[in-house]
């Protein structure tokens, strides 16, 4: 049963906030992790692992480079769930 997009976005926003301090409202589907949110690759790996734990999905390392925007990540998690 796939998770709802809104549910994943909210959960991801909490993880991003916890790791970086970025306000949850700023974590929008169209935001680019690097260019808009200034999240570095080390924080990104922590966020990925925390997403795996929270949503019960597996995000392969080779997939992480394709997750450029928040929307990319949310859609991947929704489809993998």
């Amino acid at each position, binding site marked *: 049963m796939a998770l709802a997009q809104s549910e994943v976005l909210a959960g991801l926003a909490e993880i991003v906030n916890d790791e*970086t*301090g970025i306000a949850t409202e700023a974590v929008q589907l169209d935001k680019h992790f690097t260019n808009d949110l200034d999240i570095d*690759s*080390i*924080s990104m790996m922590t966020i990925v692992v925390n997403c795996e734990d929270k949503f019960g999905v597996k995000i392969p390392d080779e997939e992480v480079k394709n997750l450029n925007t928040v929307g990319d990540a949310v859609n991947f998690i929704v489809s993998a769930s």
Partner: protein
Amino acid sequence: MAKKIVVTGLGATTPLGGDVATTWKNLLGGKSGITTIDKDWIEKYEVPVTFAGQAAVAASEILTPQEIKRLDPSSQFALISAREAWADAGSPDVTPERFAVEYSTGIGGVWTLLEAFQTLQERGPRRVLPMTVPMLMPNGPAAAIGMDLAARGGVRTAVSACASSTEAIANAYNRLQTDEIDVVVAGGCEAAIHALPLSAFAAMHALSKRNDAPSKASRPYDANRDGFVMGEGGASLVLETEEHALARGAKIYAELAGGSVTSDAYHITAPDPQGSGAARAMLATLAQAGATISDVRHINAHATSTPVGDIAEYTALKRVFGDLLPSIPVTATKSSTGHLLGAAGAVEAIFTILALHGGVIPPTINLDDPDPDIHLDVVTSPRELTGDNILAISNSFGFGGHNAVVAFRKY
């Protein structure tokens, strides 16, 4: 002609207080910062020593949750003390390329390392935090300060056990003598109150075992001393050329008149009982300061409260000061703070500076029954320190046979 180097900012978080002012007030008040460790891991691992000089103010009360998450506890203390020192110096407008950091730790990110290993064992390699390496590396605290304050003139970490941060200050002195640098943040940090370091230091019989009386456990020069007490925290000094400080109208606490290091090549942990390496470091520092032994009016001793260490330093002091020694007031502030290892030298440098600047020597506590073999004028209640052009020195020695000494002159 050596450049005159001055101290323009101080910062510290210690077992006696979360800042310099509180630490100094409690030190002068004869308080002990040593308390029982109220953590479940003490019982879980049956740690034989159950007390330490724990930071009076938790880093989490000062830093953001994200800073706490991305910095080892040692770097947290480093950043807190460096920010205080920098603000105390008036947050000077410096050229980043002419601004350096010399910041030490004795052990480094031991909490990060051991927790990461636990994560690896329990949850596998993918759950090991990607920040583990930058958090555990010993240059992490110096790098964190350098990034925070935008120092681009070089960020270095001297690692010489308990001599580390005195060596860092000596290195800063030398760096400031070049024409490359105007300002240095120097100091050290330590956060090793963890089951493993406590057990390891206890295994070598270096720690006091007075579990039933923590505040009485650190007792340098006392006949009944039985080892040192581990402490944690961080301390930072803003050092700059006098020319640079005067040009910006900075408040000046004292002159950093010299700093030297020597090594014993005697034993990996035991001090040379003859104290010749320690004596050479003191004499080299005085030579650098253009001073003689009669200029020294106060000594902040390394004096960790170990049976052999206090005697070895006393022997070295006798070699240097001879007949003058009984007339020089000595203090052993580890009696109040415990031994902050890689941060100890910087904490004690601050105490030495404040003694000169404020004209009062802080006391040594717990000296109930002075060791009959040690004949020093140990200050046991705050004592006035007067005189112009006087010098005070601070000694630090570390496992590995490291000796580091810095001298400050009243300004």
